[in-house]
């Protein structure tokens, strides 16, 4: 939130001056009127249409989750040796989507990338919603979700403890910590905005509700001092956490002995893939939000262009990882590893391998062109292709590696059932329903953070810090 003052700019030639982070006349007051007033008006008709569609989709998915829980997970396509399929693919996919939010809110904050202030709130919200979607899948995969609390180490009548040497238990800790830390980070950022909404509210009940959730925040300098420190510390902690979470998710695979999983490159490869997929999802949602909510002056073309540059960079990293996977397979001189890699590019599921490579590596190369980075059509095309590609990447890693490992007698072709697809669609429905609700109920842009970086927001003289 602390913005570096641009006192040096005055003496610089035009080209070297900092580009303003907003376009058009924006003042702290107009910002509040633009962002906070959204929650005070009735949503437009198109919003109702959209949320009706997404919540129907979510209800459809949850219906099939109910069917699964009632009947048992035999209604999915999972069967020996492919015991992990859509459930774990979707889990890894959604956790990955969440990582972009933390990257934007925490890592870019530490790097003092001030442009992130305008999109941080939305990205953080997406993190929380994505982790919610992700959490569903391991929960229903255990078959008896009402006993999922057995995963936690608590003293019990059975005198049993969980196995702390299992990456699956690490995952329980990583994902639950990630969710609670993201929620805390999000809420702290929201606190001053909630106070603004409290002071704007005219309806008695709304005022009461905002008063309670804003905890009586009144912007005292002594409070801001601790608040800023807490925010900085949280950013530092969340940075370490976000890198650890997808590393731990990758340990689920890397610590096993399945050919195609047992690789040291997995943790960084998974983290890069997560950021890649997450940024694409953020681009898709941001484009819709800035168009429908008229936020072009705050989420500028430059924001989207920078986001697209990150996607391009991550795409190149992914290309390197894929190439490294092939190199490792070849260099290992291991027949099983060779076989797995050949399966990716030519087996029964070879089409999925090539779909992954073309969606994740080839399509984003369009973003080298400035025209594609700034055109809605091309950036949405690339972002959608990355979303599809990253889902299939997890399909490739999980299903291809499992369906043919060491013993040919145990090989089997995996076929998902309609229930698998219904639950996947349902998770998208849940995600977009939550996003739509969020867009109408809470400020989509962190007004406090943007106020702090507006031109003239910070003192240029008179302080003791010159």
């Amino acid at each position, binding site marked *: *939130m602390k913005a570096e003052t641009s006192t040096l700019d005055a003496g610089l030639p035009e080209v070297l001056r900092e580009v303003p982070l907003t376009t058009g006349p924006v003042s702290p007051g107009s910002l509040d009127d633009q962002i906070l007033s959204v929650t005070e008006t009735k949503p437009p008709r198109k919003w109702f249409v959209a949320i009706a569609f997404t919540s129907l989709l979510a209800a459809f998915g949850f219906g099939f989750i109910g069917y699964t829980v009632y009947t048992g997970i035999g209604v999915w396509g999972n069967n020996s040796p492919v015991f992990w399929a859509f459930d774990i693919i979707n889990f890894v996919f959604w956790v990955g989507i969440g990582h972009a939010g933390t990257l934007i809110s925490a890592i870019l904050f530490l790097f003092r990338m001030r442009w992130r202030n305008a999109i941080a709130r939305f990205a953080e919200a997406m993190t929380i919603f994505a982790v919610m979607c992700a959490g569903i899948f391991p929960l229903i995969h255990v078959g008896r979700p009402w006993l999922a609390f057995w995963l936690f180490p608590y003293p019990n009548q059975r005198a049993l403890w969980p196995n702390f040497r299992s990456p699956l238990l690490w995952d329980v800790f990583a994902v639950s910590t990630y969710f609670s830390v993201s929620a805390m980070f999000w809420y702290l950022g929201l606190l*001053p905005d909630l106070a603004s909404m*409290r002071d704007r509210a005219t309806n008695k009940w709304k005022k009461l509700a905002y008063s309670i959730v804003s*905890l*009586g925040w009144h912007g005292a300098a002594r409070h801001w001092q601790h*608040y800023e420190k807490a925010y900085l*510390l949280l950013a530092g902690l969340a940075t370490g956490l976000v890198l*650890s979470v997808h590393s731990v998710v990758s340990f689920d695979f890397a610590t096993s002995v399945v050919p195609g999983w047992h690789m040291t490159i997995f943790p960084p490869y998974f983290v890069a893939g997560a950021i890649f997929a997450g940024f694409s999802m953020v681009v898709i949602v941001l484009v819709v939000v800035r168009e429908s909510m008229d936020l072009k002056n705050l989420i500028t073309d430059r924001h989207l262009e920078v986001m697209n540059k990150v996607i391009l960079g991550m795409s190149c990293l992914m290309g390197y990882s894929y190439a490294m996977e092939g190199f490792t397979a070849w260099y290992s001189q291991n027949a099983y590893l060779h076989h797995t890699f050949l399966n990716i590019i030519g087996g029964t599921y070879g089409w999925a391998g090539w779909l992954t490579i073309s969606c994740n590596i080839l399509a984003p190369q369009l973003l080298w062109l400035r025209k594609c980075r700034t055109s809605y059509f091309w950036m949405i095309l690339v972002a959608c292709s990355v979303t599809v590609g990253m889902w299939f990447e997890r399909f490739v890693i999980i299903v291809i590696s499992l369906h043919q490992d060491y013993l040919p007698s145990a090989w089997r072709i995996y076929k998902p059932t309609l229930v698998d697809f219904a639950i996947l669609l349902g998770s998208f429905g849940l995600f977009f329903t939550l996003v739509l609700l969020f867009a109408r109920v809470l400020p989509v842009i962190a007004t406090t953070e943007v106020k702090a970086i507006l031109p003239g927001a910070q003192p240029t003289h008179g302080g003791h810090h010159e």
Partner: protein
Amino acid sequence: MSDFAVLGLFDSADALLAAIPKVKASKLGRLEAYTPYPVHGLDEALELRRSPLGGMVLGMGILGALTALAFQYWISAIDYPIVTGGKAPWSWEAFVPIMFEVMVAFATFTAGLGMLFLLNKLPFFGHPVLGTKAMRGITRDRFALAIEADPGLDAEAARTALLAAGAGEIEVLPAPPGGPFLTSDFVLRTLGGIFVACTVAGIGMYWAIKLVPQVIPVSHMLDQPRLNAQQGSAFFKDGQAMRMPVPGTVARGYLPVAAATQEAAAALVNPLPTTPEVLALGKRAFTNRCAVCHGPLANGQGSLGAAYGGKPANLQAPQFLAYPDGKLYWTIVNGKNAMPSQAADLSTDERWAVVHYVRALQRAQNAKDEDLP
């Protein structure tokens, strides 16, 4: 009621920062600024102490990591030492991921909740500034500087000082109505609330524990396709769930005696050696099954003999001293006269041990000088 503070409003962070040294010079009371966003240089201008949050978070983070390590070590190496993946109980490398996550969780909650609850003393809905007209501007785009002194604020002097420093509007904040915190009414209400909450939670848990296992699909686990003993079944022709063993089935430890009559059994040889363990086994079996009739010394003077008028054999009688082992064994298995069979209660080994023990009793009752050590 005295006034709590005098508030001056400014239009920009620049104006606020410029005013602080001037107002500070008047020495009228404690200075506090209220701003819509954190303003650079305000901490230094107001001479605020550095936030201690960093140290708190560091301490709690280290505590979190150590807690996780100790917890995992105690569980994996002491309380429940199960070898998994060939790892030693103290395989600390495997504990690192959870140590890290717990460290982050401890540190995060310290940073977030410690900041809110401990340092900023929130939630607090009674701060005087919350009720002012200026509050709407403070969370929007105005910057307020307050001179706070309670009691004894010179409101007029404060107003003059703030106006001189360039404040646009002035607002005087009355002190909040104070009262005793712990009234008996408050204590009673709190205790009553706790009682109601505990009762509701207790009744709720009782019914949850009682009913949840009977709810579909939780109850599906109870529904197992199997036949219980003594149950009927339409599957088998005789309509019973239990099956008879195949003819000729022999239970473990109960081999039938390889002799048709007691005379033929005379040829059987006791397969057990005479060791203290075998004699102990024989003594236990004899005491439990035989002594009640035959007496502890096997002389036929058991406690039950008088009660039912029978005449159990006196095994110390001369004809039994010369009795072959096999015939004694046969009698244990098949019974004789009024004596019932003991086959169902004594295993093969126990029967032969009893034979050894009876021989020992006979020798003890008819000891010769040579038997002395």
